């Protein structure tokens, strides 16, 4: 596999937009392979934040003065942009949250209020803690039953068991689009379709997919979709919850406060329409606006080309890694995104991660907030490399050299 000069130019053009990529770490050029944890930010997003605070900053939604009106317009335009990027039916179905975790908790709490003892919620064995613990808390609070779809040794979801678990009592199937520790892409189309057949609603955890897949919410037809801004070139502290309005409308509000009300009195308080009903308090205004800019950035890319590039990186790295003796790669599937989890012999992942860092390479080690997967494979953790559009094959070459050196020292 060769990089064509044209492609190199495109990638260099993208890299030039990310200021952090010129940083030195421990005296070496930073190689950032921890994109599944958080993505780096293009200059346009960083500049949007500064220019907001330097020229436009005001509180929104209730001000008659110009700054406030303009800030409101910017914030609501960001919502519209995100809505149309995701092809939601209406921007009133796009709710700004703090992030994926916040979104799932909102649904667990608010949609959870509609559930009855004995109702079942289905998750998979590869979920992130953020898609496990909220349901365990709900289990305690509302006496629902949490059921877990097992995975195969490959890391792929056991679809047969999924169908066996699915029944009339299943009220919600909450599943990750892409596993953050294995990189496996779940067949969510099929899962959504089958779940709907028994009347269950489906929540898709899009934390990992939003950066790598083009999402069309109407085509997907999931009932809820959540993601974090910081994983898709946007700022921290902002995320999105999409929900079908027919559901959001019957769900009780999650938090109470400013902006989410229509009228407040001590006798009777009524709530605002969507999306505001679920956005209590002053929102992360700048977060929302800059997340809009992040989607502008994405739209400036050739998305398919970027996907091809990421897949090339995945294949190239997997090929190289497989040449290492004693390597074990977790998560094997035809449908994978640019995430590789592995261990080498009996070497502790923490040791390798530490030595890679000393050579300027940022990877993640540990359980990646998916302890049940680690228990499943009976390992303390893995080394995870995860690529983004700005990564290159030559970075992978440097990573391989550093990895081999680390292994040699540790063996």
């Amino acid at each position, binding site marked *: 596999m060769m990089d064509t000069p044209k492609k190199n130019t495109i990638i260099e053009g993208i890299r030039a937009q990310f200021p952090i990529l010129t940083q030195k770490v421990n005296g070496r050029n930073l190689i950032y392979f921890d994109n599944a944890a958080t993505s780096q930010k293009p200059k346009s997003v960083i500049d949007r934040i500064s220019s907001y605070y330097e020229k436009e900053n005001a509180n929104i939604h209730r*001000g008659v003065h110009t700054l406030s009106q303009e800030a409101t*317009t910017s914030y609501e335009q960001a919502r519209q942009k995100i809505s149309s990027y995701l092809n939601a039916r209406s921007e009133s179905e796009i709710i700004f949250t703090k992030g994926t975790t916040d979104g799932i908790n909102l649904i667990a709490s608010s949609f959870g209020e509609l559930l009855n003892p004995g109702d079942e919620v289905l998750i998979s064995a590869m979920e992130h803690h953020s898609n496990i613990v909220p349901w365990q808390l709900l289990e305690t609070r509302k006496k629902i039953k949490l059921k877990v779809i097992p995975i195969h040794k490959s890391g792929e979801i056991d679809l047969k068991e999924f169908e066996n678990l699915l029944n009339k009592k299943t009220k919600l199937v909450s599943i990750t689009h892409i596993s953050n520790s294995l990189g496996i892409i779940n067949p969510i189309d099929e899962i959504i379709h089958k779940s709907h057949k028994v009347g269950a609603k489906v929540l898709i955890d899009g934390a990992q997919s939003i950066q790598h897949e083009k999402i069309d919410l109407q085509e997907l037809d999931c009932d809820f979709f959540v993601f974090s801004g910081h994983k898709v070139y946007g700022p921290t502290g902002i995320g999105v919850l999409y929900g079908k309005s027919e559901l959001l409308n019957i769900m009780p509000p999650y938090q109470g406060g400013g902006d989410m009300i229509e*009228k407040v009195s001590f006798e009777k308080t009524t709530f605002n329409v969507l999306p505001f009903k679920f956005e209590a308090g002053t929102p992360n205004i700048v977060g929302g606006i800059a997340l809009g800019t992040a989607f502008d950035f994405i739209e400036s890319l050739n998305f398919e080309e970027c996907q091809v590039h990421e897949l090339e990186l995945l294949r190239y790295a997997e090929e190289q890694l497989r040449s290492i003796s004693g390597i074990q790669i977790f998560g094997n599937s035809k449908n994978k995104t640019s995430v590789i989890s592995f261990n080498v012999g009996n070497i502790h992942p923490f040791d390798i991660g530490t030595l890679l860092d000393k050579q300027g390479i940022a990877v993640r080690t540990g359980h990646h907030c998916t302890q049940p997967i680690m228990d499943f494979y009976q390992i303390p953790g893995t080394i995870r490399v995860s690529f983004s559009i700005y990564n290159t094959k030559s970075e992978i070459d440097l990573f391989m050299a550093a990895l081999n050196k680390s292994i040699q020292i540790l063996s």
Partner: protein
Amino acid sequence: MNYTEKQNSIIEDFSMFDDWMEKYELIIDLGKEIELIPTEDKQDDQLIEGCQSRVWLKSNYKNGKMFYYADSDAIITKGIISLLIKVMNGEKPKTIAQEELFFIKKIGLQEHLSPTRANGLLEMVKRMKLDAIKNI
């Protein structure tokens, strides 16, 4: 004058002022002069609650044409309403439903139709059009 001409004539009226305060003086005068809906007629179902100022709206369909009555507790809102009514009154439902309403933006008042919920104007314009659609 047709729908477009009425709007252009308002735009022309406003183009004579280059100072914001003067434009608003005109709007306020319009708000003061015209009694839009008799107070005793104001029903709760005609109330559109903005976060700050409130708007009442009543529509009539007569001889194939729409007629609107409205009011607000804020005089600037009232002035803008009177402009809207000037343009829409006596028009066919189809015209109101389909033709562009551009003068608000042209004279620089679009912020009053922004989704800030400060006043009920945006909601009012929507209802005016909806009421028209019902009579197509």
